[in-house]
């Protein structure tokens, strides 16, 4: 178990290292001189040069990579020229919006999907199964941003129950902040829940066809008890895989959803930074997102091991 975990962490670190090289080189080959971008077209060559020197742009590539990557390790993500602030501050300020949004969405999606999937599997072929899986099939097909537009139209414009967008910050209390996140998290969660419900159902059905289910039934355990005691835990293995993948999806989803709702989160930050070519911000946020995806994948592996004793033994 420890060996397994150490190996996963080592692989994760190597992945992160390679990812940082890729991100750095992509930014490196981009057209455009950051110093000129910052100072504008009318800057004097002397001023440009001074700024380049100050930003360390004249150093060799390897040196710059090391100082950039090393800086990130110590929490120094560099300075944004558009916001004229340290990137780490920008990230911290935005993360308090994005992280709750992603977590609420993930919780919502899991809380809806897994019971629905189990319910549908237990009633395979019956009306409840057909209706819930039909709904899920449609849910999978709905783009989350379009769903967000519909939600805004119905609940904000028409019924005026919640704000149509924007974010008041947490300073005015938890409720106004949460209220602003209701629609965005629903828009993010429901299409994901549709996918997860389908996966849960098919994993359950797969497991219910296994020999050990028959063994349990031959013991005299009623169908429903077998479903909960024997099938569920085995079915969680594929469900965990999808949950891990969905986390990455949710992160990306926040980029679009935060734009639909004008929410000042990480997604909106990175999107604006890309359009304004504020590369240091883009690099920082991407590395942070990649690191969190890798971390979640490690957590998923740990969860596998908790569910499945065969993996626990693999050490």
């Amino acid at each position, binding site marked *: 178990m420890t060996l397994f975990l150490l190996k996963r962490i080592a692989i994760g670190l190597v992945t992160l290292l390679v990812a940082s090289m890729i991100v750095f080189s992509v930014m490196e080959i981009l057209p455009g001189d950051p110093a000129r971008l910052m100072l504008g077209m009318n800057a004097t060559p002397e001023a440009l040069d001074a700024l380049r020197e100050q930003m360390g742009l004249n150093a060799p590539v390897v040196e710059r990579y090391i100082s950039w990557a090393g800086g990130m390790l110590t929490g120094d993500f560099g300075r944004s020229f558009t916001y004229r602030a340290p990137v780490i501050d920008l990230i911290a300020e935005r993360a308090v919006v994005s992280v709750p949004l992603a977590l609420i969405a993930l919780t919502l999606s899991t809380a809806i999907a897994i019971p629905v999937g189990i319910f549908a599997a237990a009633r395979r072929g019956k009306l409840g199964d057909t209706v819930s899986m039909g709904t899920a099939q*449609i849910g999978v097909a709905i783009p989350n941003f*379009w769903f967000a537009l*519909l939600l805004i139209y119905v609940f904000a414009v028409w019924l005026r129950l919640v704000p149509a967008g924007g974010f008041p910050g947490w300073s005015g209390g938890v409720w106004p902040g949460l209220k602003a996140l209701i629609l965005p998290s629903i828009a993010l969660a429901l299409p994901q829940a549709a996918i997860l419900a389908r996966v849960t159902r098919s994993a359950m059905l797969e497991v219910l066809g296994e020999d050990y289910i028959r063994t349990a039934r031959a013991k005299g355990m009623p169908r429903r008890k077998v479903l909960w005691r024997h099938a569920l835990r085995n079915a969680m293995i594929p469900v965990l895989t999808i949950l891990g993948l969905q986390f990455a999806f949710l992160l990306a989803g926040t980029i679009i959803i935060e734009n*639909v709702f004008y929410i000042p989160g990480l997604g909106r930050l990175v999107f604006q930074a*890309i359009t304004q070519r504020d590369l240091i911000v883009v690099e920082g946020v991407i590395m942070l997102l990649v690191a969190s995806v890798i971390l979640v994948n490690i957590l998923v592996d740990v969860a596998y091991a908790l569910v499945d004793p065969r993996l626990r033994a693999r050490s």
Partner: protein
Amino acid sequence: MSTEPTSPPVEGAAHFVRAAFSNVSFVTGFATTVLIAAMALVSFMWTPYDITLISIADKQLTPSVQHLFGTDHFGRDILSMIMVGARNSIAVAFVAVGIGIGVGVPLGCWAAARGGWIDEVLMRFNDLVFAFPALLSAIMITAIFGPGAVNAIIAIGIFNVPVFARVARAGAMALWPREYILAARASGKSATLITIEHILPNIASILLVQATIQFALGILAEAGLSYLGLGAQPPMTSWGRMLFDAQTRMMGAPHLAIFPGLAIVVTVLGLNLLGDGLRDVLDPRLRRAR
């Protein structure tokens, strides 16, 4: 014993067609997909209105007999726009799936055939690509190399590569220990020849199912990119682009957003149903589980 497989995987084309057309998912999905494809093709020759003509007098008309889905902020017929937009949405997703299959399948087959460190490296590389949230990287790529349909294709295509590599590898790995592959090896056939003769035909069905799923995801991704203004650029249009234009005008004219969105939903739904149906028909193991 009665647990023996009763239906072998291949029973000829005639059987496949019969099985496919008695599967509700397949029929619905197939019909929808054909309909959308036909709509896109027809748009090359005919649309109800010419979408290059701007008529401000007719702007943002609600749906009526003349304009079934209404008109947009330039007075263009939305039905005609959706027909033309279908081309782009479909083309982007189609080429992106092509890239995924063209690069991913050979890679996956190669990894499965060679095993060892080649396999390990390829799979680690796959994990690496998976660590980048796909849409984020697509946004990055299109933002860096400029918005447009071609860059959108490349961005979506790159993320299809590891998906197909993984599916092809898993399928091929399951086949390599089979006795008929061992028999082929005992007949002196090379790994390449065995892959072509035995592996590919037998993983074609799972690849096909994956292709319909990726196609659907491609449509959604293209819509997402265009919605952020990073995909199709005017005068080109696509469903996502129409939603981008509709966004700020939602309050007064919700139909601007409803119809292109419905076009996406119907197409993706159709493709997913087609994929589900194909899986039911092609994979007897899963058929049992349903």
